[in-house]
């Protein structure tokens, strides 16, 4: 049972929703990522720095054990699953906005990744991946022979 219009609950301030939607539409155009369908896949940020980059993904309610991360060359894949709350006999949905089920996203980074040096942390429903550049891609100083 799913009833969005039940009178005891109503979300106030529709402008919040609008602002959020507008912000996403107005977001930066992806350059090396595939487009994302809003609200069905976790949202991801990637910031490059001189040593590589940091990827963060919003995964609220996921257990770390339900998240799989794979790194190969310049491709990072994140898989995960979270279950919807379970309703017993006689219990009722009044509002159901949170997405559940499994997802998989892959990102092609602008650099190859040193897979052994990747660091992953999960805190407050946010996954943070530190993705160092492969050693072979780092600039090297060439000594001039005397």
């Amino acid at each position, binding site marked *: 049972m799913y009833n969005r219009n039940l*009178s*005891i*609950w*109503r*979300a*106030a*301030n529709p*402008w*919040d*929703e609008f*602002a*959020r939607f*507008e*912000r*996403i539409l*107005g*977001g*930066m155009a*992806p*350059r*090396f*990522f595939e487009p*994302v369908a809003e*609200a069905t896949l976790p*949202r*991801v*940020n*990637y*910031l*490059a*720095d*001189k040593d590589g*980059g*940091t990827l*963060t993904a*919003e*995964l*609220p*309610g*996921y*257990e770390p054990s339900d998240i799989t991360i794979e790194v190969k060359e310049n491709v990072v894949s994140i898989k995960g699953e979270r279950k*919807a*709350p379970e*309703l*017993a006999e*006689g*219990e*009722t*949905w*009044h*509002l*159901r*906005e*949170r*997405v559940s089920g499994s997802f998989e996203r892959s990102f092609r980074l*602008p650099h190859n990744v040193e897979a052994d040096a990747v660091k992953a942390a*999960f805190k*407050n*429903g*946010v996954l943070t991946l530190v993705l160092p550049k492969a050693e072979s891609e780092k600039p090297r100083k060439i000594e001039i022979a005397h």
Partner: protein
Amino acid sequence: MMATATETARTAHYSPSVDIIERETEFVVYADMPGVDEHSVDVTLDKDVLTVYGTVKAGAKAEGEAHEEYVAADYKRLFTLGAKIDRNAIGASVKHGVLTLVLPKAAELQPRKIEIASA
């Protein structure tokens, strides 16, 4: 709306996605608020309006190339409570960026088993 992405993010809050379930003796609300913990969420009740506010630290600034699908911003959502809810017994907890609110139904609305007096 002429506001750019960043201007909008600075002035607006996210409205967290929410599930609401009615169980036998209570309502349960789950709100996705990635980035918050139990110290950074405020739940306040003013008359019939329950306000959920989550504070999130701003994310790092890009030094080089960046791909941004979200901007770390605060969360805010208001709910209007019906007369059914016992206002003095509302509970809240946070785990992995999900706020859980438990709102017990007022005692007089809870199902009661009537004992049959023995003859």
